[in-house]
């Protein structure tokens, strides 16, 4: 009797596998779609700013002013161009997006430099993108500060801040985003795959034939999850691989550990999909629920883009329900910090607990009759 349970689960798993294999077009889409998304978002979601167009209005034409301009040219953040037109034309410069910042150097720079304690330099910054404007202002300050320090040896400042940026010394935002994207793509795809698997059988009527057989809900649920775990692992490896190769993310931790914990995350996502599948009556509804339940929470509540600690308290509590929150701890920890399993026990256990709970609820919710 015990072996017949196994036969039933395996019968389902095999059947699901055949469904997948007989539909190579869908299979191709399933594999290509997340790769495309990863490449697209990976390059688009870039918070670093480089080659900012700066227009310099040098009214002084002195050795000193040229030295200031040289300081800007030396920085990789700026692309410097001299502006010699009318001052009234500066507005058009911003509107045509030929400059995002304008530096105005007064005509009497030399005179002021010799007789005044401070020389005003004016920066006009395009703040239509507020985040970029803040960064540009910081860069400008930095350049001017460097200039000040190299030209005033007597200047005594009480503190000199020196910070060491750990784990991501270049502050590359791809290191931050690519793991998040992996978390997002894996959960969306995995939940989608299983969410339509039972509803499809409700729609075609084959579920009726299954319900009159002695299979139990647990056989169906496990049998349906099993083949997708295999697929999830393949897709997961592909996404991780492309993420590392394409975005040159350093890998400091254990590959095996990341693989195993990714498997756990995929299992959680598949279990979510199965639960949706047992409740929804049509594939369309199932797909919509799956998308809503995975995309928005993962984007906004997992710490993918917005830090959890700066969220309203209610949302912080809600974020505990989002599997990606835990997976992000795992994936960022392993690849950037080289965390080991004992550092990641908490998120790993939560994901395991979530999977078991979701599967149990699915089995409980599964109706063995055709009652509404």
């Amino acid at each position, binding site marked *: 009797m015990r072996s017949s349970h196994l*036969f*039933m689960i395996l019968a389902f798993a095999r059947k699901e596998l055949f469904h997948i294999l*007989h539909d190579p077009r869908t299979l191709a889409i399933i594999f290509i779609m997340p790769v495309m998304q990863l490449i697209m978002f990976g390059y688009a979601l870039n918070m670093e700013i480089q080659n900012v167009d700066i227009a310099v209005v040098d009214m002084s034409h002195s050795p000193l002013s040229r030295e200031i301009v040289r300081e800007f040219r030396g920085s990789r953040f700026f692309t410097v161009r001299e502006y010699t037109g009318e001052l009234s034309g500066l507005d058009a410069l911003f509107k045509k997006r030929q400059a995002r910042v304008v530096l105005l150097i007064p005509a009497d720079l030399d005179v002021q430099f010799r007789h005044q304690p401070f020389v005003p330099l004016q920066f006009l910054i395009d703040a239509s993108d507020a985040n970029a404007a803040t960064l540009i202002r910081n860069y400008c300050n930095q350049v001017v500060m460097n200039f000040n320090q190299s030209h005033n040896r007597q200047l005594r400042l009480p503190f000199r801040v020196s910070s060491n940026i750990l784990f991501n010394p270049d502050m590359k935002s791809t290191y931050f985003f690519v793991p998040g994207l992996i978390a997002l793509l894996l959960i969306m795809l995995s939940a989608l795959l299983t969410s339509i698997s039972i509803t499809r059988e409700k729609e075609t009527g*084959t579920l009726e034939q299954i319900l*009159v057989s002695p299979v139990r809900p647990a056989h169906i649920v496990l049998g349906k999850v099993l083949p997708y775990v295999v697929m999830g692992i393949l897709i997961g490896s592909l996404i991780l691989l492309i993420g590392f190769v394409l975005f040159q993310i350093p890998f400091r931790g254990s590959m095996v550990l990341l693989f195993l914990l990714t498997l756990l995350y995929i299992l959680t996502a598949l279990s979510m999909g199965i639960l949706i599948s047992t409740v929804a009556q049509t594939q369309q509804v199932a797909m919509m629920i799956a998308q809503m339940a995975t995309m928005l929470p993962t984007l906004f509540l997992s710490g993918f883009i917005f830090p959890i600690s700066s969220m309203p308290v209610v949302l912080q509590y809600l974020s505990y329900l989002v599997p990606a929150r835990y997976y992000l701890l795992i994936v960022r920890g392993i690849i950037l910090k080289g965390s080991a399993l004992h550092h990641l026990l908490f998120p790993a256990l939560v994901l395991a607990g979530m999977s078991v709970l979701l599967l149990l609820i699915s089995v409980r919710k599964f109706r063995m*009759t055709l009652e509404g």
Partner: protein
Amino acid sequence: MDTYAVLTEKLSRHFGDFVAVDGVTLRVSTGEVFGFLGPNGAGKTTLIRMLCGLLKPTSGRATVGGYDVYRESERIKQHIGYMSQRFSLYGDLTVQENIDFYGGIYGLSRERVQRKREELLSTLHLGRYRNLLTRDLPLGFKQRLALGCAMLHEPPILFLDEPTSGVDPAARRAFWEVIHATARQGTTIFVTTHFMEEAEYCHRVAIMNFGKVVALDSPGSLKTRYQKSTMQEVFVAILQQEGANSEFREEPA
């Protein structure tokens, strides 16, 4: 212990205000081919679904193979085969994959599935098409294959819900030959149909209208009683008489 394969007593099923099955009492003996006739919406499918455990009865009593439909539906499932009007095969799986799956969900061992599969393929002359996708089979073959899949675990009781709908007359005749061969081996067959000439193939028929059984006997006795030469005429006569009796009944939505 009763010796009846299927036994119902005042079995009813309501859907809200609509009474789909209204106090049906039946006794189907082991090895009998029992036909269930009636126009669409008469309640045949609802009755069969209650007996298979797919729907819960609203009231009444029923046993299948001696097991109670309320309490022992899991045991019933081991003893019945069921084939629905929709021939529940997976169109995107091959003939062989379909057979293997249905064998598997009944917990049959690999060897047993294999043996039953080869048997089935050779009786259906489908051996050459084992790797063909089921959706590419002609309807008659699909129907025979669906029946075969429903019988892989050799159930003593077989429920067939309009198994011949949409199939051409020659394939229907072939199908009934299979059913009779199966019944001769002691399998009880409970079949619904709306083809009246198929009633002739049954040992006994129940005619259902508006959820009630309005006539129940062998085709021969029914023809004698109503003095008609075919079941088609018997059926029309009964429905006319019934229609007159039930003119105050509301049409089901």
